[in-house]
């Protein structure tokens, strides 16, 4: 089976197959042998050529969380055929000039610094999100105009919630 595994901007297109009680994952140049224990819990053991790892494993919708040596990785893993369909869809939407500002963590909006229609520079703070006793400035990912500001001071927001749109 051919899979596309993504972590942020890193993409691994790999061929996976069963072999010898485990799995062979090859990435063109490099090949990994992976064995997994057969329990169902969120913490398992994975054996690779590199050693034996106690890993955390969780799946939420399309993404996998993997914890290895204390480090948390968030991956998506898709069949390459599906991946191609998605790419097709994205090309059609034509939203290349538009950037969405979403809540990176759940929290409370304490201050909205800019209004709809305001011009913003790349990296300019647009609002302040308080979470866990710390205040976090949420900045614009690029220069442009704020065409939409959904965030309201005092509102609780979930992770990923749309806060504002820059064009």
């Amino acid at each position, binding site marked *: 089976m051919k899979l596309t595994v993504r972590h942020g901007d890193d993409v691994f297109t*790999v061929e996976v197959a069963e072999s010898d009680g485990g799995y062979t*994952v090859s*990435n063109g140049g490099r090949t990994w042998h*992976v064995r997994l224990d*057969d329990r169902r819990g969120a913490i398992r053991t994975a054996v690779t050529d590199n050693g034996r790892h106690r890993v955390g*494993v969780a799946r939420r919708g399309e993404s996998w969380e993997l914890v290895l040596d204390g*480090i948390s990785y968030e*991956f998506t893993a898709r069949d390459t055929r599906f991946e191609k369909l998605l790419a097709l869809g994205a090309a059609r939407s034509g939203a290349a000039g538009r950037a969405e500002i979403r809540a990176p963590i*759940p929290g409370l909006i304490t201050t909205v610094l800019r209004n709809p229609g305001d011009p913003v520079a790349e990296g300019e703070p647009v609002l302040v999100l308080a979470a866990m006793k*710390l205040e976090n400035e949420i900045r614009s990912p690029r220069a442009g105009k704020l065409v939409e500001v959904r965030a309201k001071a005092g509102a609780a927001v979930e992770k990923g919630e749309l806060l504002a749109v820059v064009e």
Partner: protein
Amino acid sequence: MKPRKIRTLLVANRGEIALRVMRTCREMGIRTVAVYSDADAWAPHVQVADEAHRLGPPPAKESYLRGDLILEAAKKSGADAVHPGYGFLSENAEFGRMCAKAGVAFVGPRAESIDAIGNKVHARQLAKKAGVPTVPGLDRAIGPKDDAGAIAAGIGFPVLIKAAAGGGGRGMRVVREAKDVERNVREAGNEAAGAFGDGSVFLERYVERPRHIEIQVFGDSAGNVVHLNERECSIQRRHQKLIEEGPSPVVDAALRAEMGRTAIRLAKAVGYVSAGTLEFLLDAGGKFYFLEMNTRLQVEHPVTEMITGTDLVKAQILVAEGAKLPWTQDDLAPRGHAIEARITAEDPFANFAPGGGTILGLDAPSGPHTRWDCGVEAGGTISMFYDSMIAKLICWGRDRAEAIERLRRALSELVIVGVPTLVPFHLHLLADPRFRAGNFHTGFVENEFSMKGIDRPHLDEAAAIVAALEYRRRRQETPEAGPGPAAGPSPWKSQALREGLRG
């Protein structure tokens, strides 16, 4: 205070510290009462208590900071004492007085002591009176008529602007030039007013590359005070401690004795009862300056418990019952070395951004000389309403090197799924040669240590594991692939586990 046995104790806190206090209560045969906000209805501290009462909605102001509701719960449950833990109401003198009025023992210092020394400006004045060295600076809050720039120049640059109330780095600024003084005083005042309801700030000399050394003290109502040695807490970021250890790698027996004597003198000057901590700055020349006193149990108290073989919460309860200190100074010589790593839900690869969520899996470390104080469990939530502390991991060793290696080993056993944690930071820091040599200061993490260049070293390996997991999942979910999810060498085991999970 008249001696009386505590039979039922209400813990006015949540998370790991509530559990830790309840453990000692259980060992002492004391019934425990938990209080909780709606965010914590089935939290571990609620599950473990003998009785539990709801306070209110999730925000702390509507729940854990509501002294009136807490005392109502105490009355309902027949609690004769309240332990405040740390944070929340622990250093609130007014709450102490409310407890006294309600006839409920407050397990902590007397309200007058909190008043006298809880405010940093008062504490400086008291320290001067008691002959305890302080950082050169202004011994009062800056008033509207003061020429802050001139005062700063008099003290000598760089100066530090500090809020008189509160802590945790809020309202704190370093100023290196006269022209920046006025503006920063104003801004720090606003920040302090917002955070603590008290906008007063003061100035002191900024000590460069200092170490944060604190002395644990303990007093009883008969006026006895002992010290339980120092803790080194210089590994911090934005004034949040990340690693604490004891003894300090730079404090020798003579300095320890001198700092201990100094701390006792100041604690006695306010008639201090229960556990308290005096924070000092230690400069590169070995001179120490009193900074402030924390009038409560500290997050890092297990470090002291491991090196001195004590139970500070038990001693707090005994002293609150009117008993004398359970130790003499001679009983408290440190043995070996202990080191604590705070396990918070913060992502060291994303500038320590906090990340809440559900803990999907949790494997705790254990074994020789390893202590795990945890406030959550698998299935529980790290909520955005409170701090991001998940747990504390503390290891003891015969010497500092052994303690550090043991902590690395224990960290390597810890697996948390669902939220990012500080674990990668700790593993990287503990391997740093400067840290291992004991060569650091309070600015070390922010200015000299970096997580850059170690960005997720196992990325390709992790991707390969995910590919294998995803492949297996697809094979198992596809009907033609075989007998379904129970396939594999041990279907009976999986079956039993699933049934166990169903009920």
